[in-house]
Structure formats: structure tokens, C-alpha cells
């Protein structure tokens, strides 16, 4: 696969929420480039527009104006089908509230994106089922959750739930992982475990975009974009990148 330096490139992105009566300017001209393999944190107070920016970058929402180039391609013309493809193949999501389906097991939760993978295989035959199982196992191993395969989400701790959610995000081996306040609902120890997993993924080559309002969490990234009132006010490299002391968190 050709190497594209800039995986994300956006110019003067604005986002206006129009409720009819009032217009809210969530983004007022955001420009930024993110290179493949980077670990970027988007920081800002609540209401700053950091979440809106993430929604636009992760194809959950569209910008009102401005250009967004994804892997060198203008995203303006992407149709619903193409967006579904990108969400399935190129992007993994980690949510603050985990978003696991309560009624099904860990295995089925992690498998979910494979059910919508119409692109890397043509049929869902027995062979694929077997590969699916292997892929789910591998994803769970990479977050050290393989021993919880048949558990229900309600039987897991918060940190374990988030690691399962990360396994789900990894299953299609996406280029980018978007993590929206991944430690927001966790105690500090579980939060560190999750950050450790994300660091590991970044080392394996995944681009990670982390949205957070905690500077301690943001310092795990190589680069921090500060956003205030819908504009990027600061874009700096982290010189002393924090990294999780593994001895501390492993049992």
C-alpha cells in the first residue's frame, strides 16, 4: 500500500448547528494535518468544539464548510455507502461509555464490525466463520481480555469493558482509532491500563486520535491540539511524552 504522509488534512472547517431559531458555531475555521502513525490528543474545555471536530474527522458528521481530505481524497463526494465502508474498514471507535451491547457476549460484541464487513470477503461461509473466530481471539489477546470471551458485558469491570470496546475497534485492523474520552468513566488504574493499550497500538503503527479534557491523559500523546471556541489555539509537540509504567498496572 502506498505510503501517504498525511492521513488527515483539513482546511478551514466550520460547523454550524442550525436549530431554526439560533445558529451555534461549533467550529469556526479549523485547519490541521495529521500524519499516519501519529498519536494526537485534541484537548479543550467542554463546549470548545473538540467533540464536534472529532465527529467530523471520524465521518460521524459532516462539516458545514471547508475541505476535509482523507488519505488524500476529498471527502465531499463520499456517499453513504463510502462512509459506511470507511467506518468499517479504516476507522475504529472507542467511546467514553463503552457502548457494548448488553444482551450479547464479549465475543459477539467484538465480532460486530465483521458482520458489516462486506468488503474483504465475498461470502460468509464456514471458513470465514472460523477466521472470524480467530480474528476476535487475536483482538481480545491484544487487550489481554481473551479469558473473558464468553462473559456478558454486565459481568465486566469498567476497565475491562473499555478494553473489550478497544478490541472491537481493532477487529478490522483500522488505520485510525478515535478515542472519545476513553478514560472518562474509569478509575485511574483502569484508565492507565486503557492508555497503555492505546500506546501499544500506536507503537504498532495505528494512528490514534484522542479527545480528552484531562491534560494528564493528553500527555500520553505525541502532539496536543488545544481547541477553544471552535478554533485551534495551540498545536504543540509533547516533549516529555508520558508512558505508562507497566509494572504499576499489571497484576
Amino acid at each position, binding site marked *: 500500500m502506498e505510503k501517504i504522509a498525511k492521513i488527515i488534512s483539513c482546511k478551514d472547517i466550520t460547523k454550524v448547528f442550525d436549530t431554526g431559531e439560533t445558529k451555534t458555531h461549533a467550529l469556526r475555521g479549523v485547519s490541521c494535518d495529521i500524519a499516519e502513525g501519529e498519536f494526537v490528543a485534541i484537548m479543550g474545555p467542554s463546549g470548545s468544539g473538540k467533540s464536534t471536530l472529532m*465527529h467530523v474527522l471520524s465521518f*460521524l458528521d459532516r462539516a458545514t464548510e471547508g475541505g476535509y481530505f482523507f488519505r488524500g481524497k476529498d471527502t465531499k463526494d463520499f456517499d453513504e*455507502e463510502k462512509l459506511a465502508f470507511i*467506518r*468499517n474498514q479504516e476507522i475504529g471507535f472507542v467511546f467514553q*461509555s463503552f457502548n457494548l*451491547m448488553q444482551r450479547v457476549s464479549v465475543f459477539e460484541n467484538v465480532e460486530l464490525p465483521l458482520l458489516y464487513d462486506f468488503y474483504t470477503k465475498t461470502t460468509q461461509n464456514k471458513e470465514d466463520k472460523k477466521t472470524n473466530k480467530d480474528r476476535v481471539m487475536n483482538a481480545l489477546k491484544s487487550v489481554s481480555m481473551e479469558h473473558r470471551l464468553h462473559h456478558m458485558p454486565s459481568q465486566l469491570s469498567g476497565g475491562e469493558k473499555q478494553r473489550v470496546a478497544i478490541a472491537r475497534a481493532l477487529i478490522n485492523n483500522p488505520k485510525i482509532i478515535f478515542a472519545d474520552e476513553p478514560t472518562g468513566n474509569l478509575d485511574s488504574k483502569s484508565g492507565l491500563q486503557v492508555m497503555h493499550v492505546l500506546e501499544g497500538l500506536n507503537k504498532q503503527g495505528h494512528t490514534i486520535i484522542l479527545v480528552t479534557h484531562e491534560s494528564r491523559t493528553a500527555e500520553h500523546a505525541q502532539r496536543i491540539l488545544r481547541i477553544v471556541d471552535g478554533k485551534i489555539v495551540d498545536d504543540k509537540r509533547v516533549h516529555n511524552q508520558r508512558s505508562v509504567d507497566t509494572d504499576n498496572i499489571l497484576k
Partner: protein
Amino acid sequence: MQNFLAAKMRTFLTIIGVVIGIAAVMVVMSVGTSAQNMILDQIRNVGSDLVAILPGAADDDGPPASTYGIVVTTMKNGDLEALRKKSNVPHAVAVSGYVSGNNVVQYKSYDKSLTFQGVSADMLDVEGSNIAFGRFFTSAEDESLARVVVLGAKIAKDIFDNEDMLGKKIKIGSQSFRVVGIMEERGATFAANYDESIYIPLQTAQKNILGIDYLNFIRMKVDDEKNVEQTKDDVRTVLRSRHDIADDEGDDFSVRNIASALSMVNNVTNIMKYFLTAVASISLIVGGIGVMNIMFIALSKRVREIGLRKAVGARRRDIMWQFLFESMIIALIGGFIGFFVGLFVIWLAWVAAMQYDIEWDMIITMQMAYVSLIITLVIGLLFGIYPARKASRISPMEALRYE
């Protein structure tokens, strides 16, 4: 768990429309066909090659006045003789005049007022009845006003019990009649109960008992069913010339075949069919709205899940099919229950028919299963499509909303 049961109960209540609708469809298909079969059987039993000539005019659909008990005296024995002539009505193979009356029938301790019929000797051929014992009376006996009687199987048993009855004399009114024959058992139709009939010669009945010179009606057997219409025309020509009628406006008689008479009965069963079909349609619509309601509840509970599915790559149509699949499953559950409720009602109808000694086929065909299945799937699709479309348009952003 209790929540789960409550949801199940609610689901069941809302699909009850589908249950009733499918059951009604089944009943229409089975009982409707059974009723029509019964009528067709009776046409065959009486004979589709029969032509009836009734006194009095009638429009095409309604029965003539004589069937309401109004006495019309315009049809005489001379008409009967004219219709018997091969040169007049070539396709007639047997012709019988009919009169009837009530009188007291006595034998030993038996004493009852009964209906008797005066018929021609040809009656046996006309109606296709058979004699079990003895013989039917002859044309000669009719001409000579012989006092002989032929009894239906059941009435013979009522009067004589197990006694040997041939040659015995019973009293009809004040006159003695010799029993010459017993009819074979034939059963009852809605038109007549053959086994309770008392037959005496036509002219004996007219002159000796009733004191009349007219006929209640004439029945004629045609050589072939396809000649029925031709024969009806022949009959009209003969009677018009005898009654000096110039055109059909002035007819003082009506000519019917059994099929046209029974089409009226058929109409009644059709009305029943339409009514049940209407009930079925309304129930199915109500049931469909129930399915739609269930799907909207499911939708509102799963907005977040749908958002998640879209965030991990589900396309609109994937969500749409997921919802359509579920609405079809729900409709299928209703259809499945309705199918068995329908079978039960069909069985009940059969049991009821047995109670009343009606010959009734219990009709259950694979076609019913197919039709129920197709209707159910269509209901699931039709009423599932709106909630499914709504679900498919949920934004993946919903997955990110914090609770």
C-alpha cells in the same frame, strides 16, 4: 425478567389482530369452500339436469309467487301432457307433475297430520330415487285414480316400526291407501327430506283428496345437462302457445333449472365470505398497526445500538433489513398462532355440522398454509417498512450521546 415477560405480553396483545386476521382467512378458505361444496353436492344430488316449471311469472333472480305459498292455478294437467310429447320437448326423458297437501295419516295407533305429495309415475326417474321394497305406482294407476301409496324410508319405519308393511292399508284423510313400495334411504337436503315423503298418484291426490285441477309445479329431467337451456326454451314455446301468450312479458309461468335456483343460496354463502374477508382485512390492518407499534417501541429503545452499528460500518439498508426481519418474525408469530386458531375454528364448524347431521367436508389444504404465510410476510413487510426506514436514518452520532 418481569420486564421481559411484560414485553412478551404486550407483544402478544398487539399481534392479536394478526392472529384473528389469519384465522379469519383460514375460515374463509375452508368453511366457505365447505359450504359451497355442500351446495354443489346437493345440486348433484337433486340433479343438475332438472328443469322446474312453476306457475306464475317471476323476474330472473327472485322466486315466483308460488314459492311463497300464494296459490296460482294457471298450470293444468293438459300442460303436463303437452310437455310429455317428444315432438314438443325432444330432450325431456321424464316429466312429473307435483301437488301437495296436508292430511291426517292413520295406521293402528299411529295418527298424525302429515304432508303428502301427488306425483306422476315418472317422478322416480325425474328425481333419480330408488325403490327399496315393492314398486312405485304406474301411469295406469294414476289415470285410474288408484288408491296406492309409496312411503319414504323413515316415515315407513315411523308408521310400521318393524312390521311387514307391503300390502297394508293406511288411511290418508278418510280414504284407505294400499302401501305398494318403500323408497330407498336418501337423506335430507335443504330443499326436501326424501325419507319423510309420502307419495300418492297425482290425479288421485288432485281429484280424490284435494279437489283441484291445477298443478303446484312440474319437474322435468333432460337427457343431457348441455340441453337444459334448449329445453327451457322448448317448454316456454309450448306453454305460451297453450296459454295464448304472445311475448315473454306476459308469461304466467317460470322455467327454472336447479342450478339457477341454487345460485341464490350460493349468493348467501358469498355474502358470508365477503363479510369474513372484511373482518380478516380489518383485523390484519389492526394487527399490522400493532406490529408497527412494536417496532417503534423497539426503535426508541435501541437508538443507541443502531448508532453504534452504523458507527462500526452498518449501511442504511443493513439496519433496514434488520428491522424488517424482526417485524416479519413478529408477524410470523402472530400468523403461526392464527393458523392454529383457524384450524380449531374449522374443526369446530365440522363438529357443529356433524351435530346437525349435515354432510360437511372438513377442508384443510396446503394452500391455506401458503396463503397465510404470504399474507403474514406481506403484513410484516408493509407495516415494518416505515419503522425500518426511520431506524435506518438514525445518525451514528447517537452512539456518542452520553446517558
